[in-house]
């Protein structure tokens, strides 16, 4: 697979959407599609996380990492702390033989 072509296509599907939004200030989308767009990040992020944790051969360690990282993020609102804390928990679980 040609990585440069993929990157070019990724750009080609990203830039026009941003440009279109800036140009369509007067447009009114139906409430259903506004709600749809609002739920896309939640839905996509969850679809990226869950199979990558539960479907992994080291799922138990990853589950511990996500539980700790998610809790830290929830309480602190700090992305850096959540990732570092989760990564630390991953290593603690790994060293503990999980």
């Amino acid at each position, binding site marked *: *697979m040609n*990585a440069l072509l*993929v990157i*070019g*296509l*990724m*750009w080609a*599907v*990203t830039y026009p*959407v*941003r*440009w*279109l*939004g*800036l*140009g*369509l*200030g007067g*447009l009114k989308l139906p*409430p*259903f599609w*506004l*709600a*749809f*767009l*609002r*739920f*896309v*990040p*939640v*839905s*996509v*992020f*969850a*679809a*990226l*996380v*869950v*199979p*990558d944790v*539960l*479907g*992994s051969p*080291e799922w138990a*360690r*990853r589950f511990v*990492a*996500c539980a700790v990282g*998610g809790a830290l*993020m929830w309480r602190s609102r*700090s*992305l*850096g702390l*959540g*990732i*570092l804390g*989760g*990564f630390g928990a*991953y290593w603690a679980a*790994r060293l503990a033989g999980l």
Partner: protein
Amino acid sequence: MPLWLGMVPFAVAYAVTARGAGLSVWETQLMSLTVFAGASQFAAAGLFAGGASMLGIVSTTFLLNARHLLYGLSLSRSLPLSRAQRLLGAQFLTDEAYGVALVSGSREPGGLSFGYLLGAELSLYAIWNASTLAGALAGSALPSPEALGVGVIFPLAFLMLLVPLVVGPQVIGRLPVVVALASGLGAWGLSQVVPGGLVILLSGVGGALLGAALVGRQGEGA
């Protein structure tokens, strides 16, 4: 700019993942220079590593970045832009730039201006690309990603983006949690039977449709 603190580790983690997936330093950097959308770059790096198809990667990118339409729509209501300003401003529009422009830009004397928006966008762009380069160069010096366990960074980073969306202070009700659970578990089930990129597309669209349908039902009930 406290946002930089969040962006630097994310950009470095993206770059390390991309290098681990077999992209060159130049390809890793090019994605930050052109696409400039953290979540979708991260997703693409993970999908490259998983050997997903071109269609899978591009459609996931499209789906993840479709929310930028909302930012553009929202900004252009409070800030009328010329054709040239739209062409330029669109390249650098991100979640963070939108948030800063909306929250801080409107508090500026004279309100939100194109200069303020572009300044916010470009400062984030510069940090993102500098951090990508640092991560891409350091990544090639590190031992294999598997030995370091950086595979877990990928789900962790997305979990960090997901948490404020489902339990953040501005979230009302439990609908986002329902959508996240349905989409996540649906994706896990689908991943046993169909290839990676398609899983994200199907469960992403499915979850968002479910959310929109539930919102509609709530609206009718109220």
